[in-house]
């Protein structure tokens, strides 16, 4: 065992500062920064580390998020370990370059403090921004609290470089990014050793063995590039689990594609992620005390989607509620659609209700989640999407 469980390493930080702390220990070579609420605490905290001489990272201040991700693409292609961070409109503005980063297989790590998209203007937490980027070829990992932000930042950096793909580590805007919570941190040298040195096989500044990044690929080859990219994405799933398990051994904190909480013998199951998953676990405990067989599945790795494993964990439940903090206008939200396709493949016909909660920072309470479980137990399941805590 390492010093991970040593009490002196137990501190309290905001989720944003927890991300910056993990980055301080990783000490990337380049960080491209542009401020946006509620992401700014991440880059602000890190910039202070750099100004105080604690890290030697080259911080590139740019004039927009489009430039932040473009600078990251340049730095990463040149061979540097590269990170950036954003939220909401910033992530939307990056969209064009997100595809370039993943198409070029650049292992950029991006912290996202997830927030609603305009219009109407709203600066508060939800998952709409990261869901908008879910098909962009980035690995996506959700975090429940400051501890998971810290852990996932370290896992994410290593995963990006091992898988040769960009990674988004996601925290809930405000409710994680701006909340002070306890966490245990590892020693800097332990983190540095875990992440390892970054030695890319090919990079633009390898002048004795020059390569081209981003050439034209037309009808005769583009398709194969995309199929290869899908294969890399698929393969990264195993890589994630390997790194997550290595991190588990190092930290003593359980890591997996998803967290099964009292799901084994559960009749009623809730699928959820982010901060609300913590609240939901308290609800499960309370209802279990009353003898109700309830459980939950919290999604950690969302892209690539661990479909078979999730369906495997759900196979014995009677009813499912999928609670999402994002709206896919015109259809069901992403978790629901992905899980439904998995259940269909396994020929599992489990009734499943779609709930949407927390858009634009709307509060979600334990009693709301309790009501979801109660409705499931009464088989109140329909094709209609239910909106929690609204007048709709």
């Amino acid at each position, binding site marked *: 065992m390492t010093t991970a469980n040593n*009490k002196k390493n*137990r*501190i309290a930080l905001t989720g944003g500062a927890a991300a910056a702390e993990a980055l301080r220990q990783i000490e990337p070579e380049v960080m491209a920064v542009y401020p946006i609420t509620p992401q700014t605490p991440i880059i602000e905290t890190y910039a202070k580390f750099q100004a105080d001489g604690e890290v030697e990272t080259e911080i590139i201040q740019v004039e927009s998020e489009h430039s932040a991700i473009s600078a990251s693409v340049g730095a990463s292609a040149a061979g540097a370990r590269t990170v950036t961070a954003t939220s909401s409109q910033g992530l939307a503005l990056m969209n064009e370059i997100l595809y370039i980063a993943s198409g070029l297989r650049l292992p950029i790590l991006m912290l996202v403090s997830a927030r609603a998209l305009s219009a109407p203007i709203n600066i508060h937490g939800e998952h709409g921004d990261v869901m908008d980027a879910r098909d962009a070829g980035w690995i996506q990992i959700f975090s429940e609290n400051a501890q998971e932000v810290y852990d996932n930042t370290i896992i994410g950096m290593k995963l990006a470089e091992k898988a040769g793909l960009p990674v988004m580590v996601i925290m809930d805007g405000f409710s994680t990014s701006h*909340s*002070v919570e306890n966490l245990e941190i590892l020693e800097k040298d332990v983190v540095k050793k875990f992440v390892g040195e970054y030695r890319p096989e090919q990079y633009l500044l390898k002048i004795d063995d020059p390569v081209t990044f981003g050439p034209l690929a037309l009808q005769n080859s583009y398709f194969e590039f995309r199929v290869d990219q899908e294969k890399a994405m698929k393969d990264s799933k195993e890589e994630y689990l390997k790194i997550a398990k290595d991190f588990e051994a190092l930290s003593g904190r359980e890591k997996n594609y998803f967290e099964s909480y009292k799901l084994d013998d559960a009749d009623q199951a809730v699928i959820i992620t982010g901060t609300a998953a913590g609240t939901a676990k*308290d609800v499960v405990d309370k209802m279990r005390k009353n003898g109700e067989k309830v459980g939950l599945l919290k999604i950690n790795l969302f892209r690539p989607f661990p479909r078979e494993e999730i369906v495997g964990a759900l196979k014995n439940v009677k009813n499912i509620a999928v609670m999402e903090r994002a709206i896919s206008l015109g259809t069901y939200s992403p978790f629901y659609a992905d899980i439904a396709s998995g259940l269909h493949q396994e020929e599992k016909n489990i009734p499943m209700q779609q709930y949407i909660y927390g858009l634009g920072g709307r509060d979600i309470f*334990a009693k709301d989640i309790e009501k979801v479980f109660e409705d499931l137990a009464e088989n109140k399941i329909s094709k209609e999407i239910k909106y929690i805590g609204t007048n709709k």
Partner: protein
Amino acid sequence: MKYHKEIFEIIFHGRGGQGAKAAAEIVAQAAVSEGKFVQAFPNFGPERSGAPTKTFVRISDKEIRNHEPVVDPDVVVVLDETIADSVDVTTNLDKNEALIINSKKSVQEIKEKLNFEGRAYPIDANGISMEIIGQPRPNTVILGKFVQVTEAVGLESVKKEFEKIFLGKIGKEATEKNLQAIEKAYDTI
């Protein structure tokens, strides 16, 4: 009824820029230094300088997983008594729960004005702060009263955290005056 009986929950009412967040953070970090689990977070409303704000703190011996805003507090701290004119600061405060308010008014006057039947602890934090620090800094002064009333964290831990956060920012002399003011508030009846 409280959902989490084993978690001690606090709401700080202040005005934007008045330091409610700093006070909440000192309490939280003091609790962490005593080996406890905490959460401290602002109510994520539109924050403008001078507008009423809420900051929440949770303290527990066990890991805190719940992420709701605090709606049923064990104690409420009001840094500016004029807030009570526009915000119902005693919502869900029961008879055995405490209201700590920066005010020159008497216990009886506070109870009558706010139609509150619980434990009221007015403290002239502005007065103490003007007298010792020479500036109105009610947010840290009131922490002395908070410790006296709740015993949720120790006085020494609070003073240590104050020093940790502010020594570099305001210097030795001002830090010492603030610590004196915290002690004075702790000693008030």
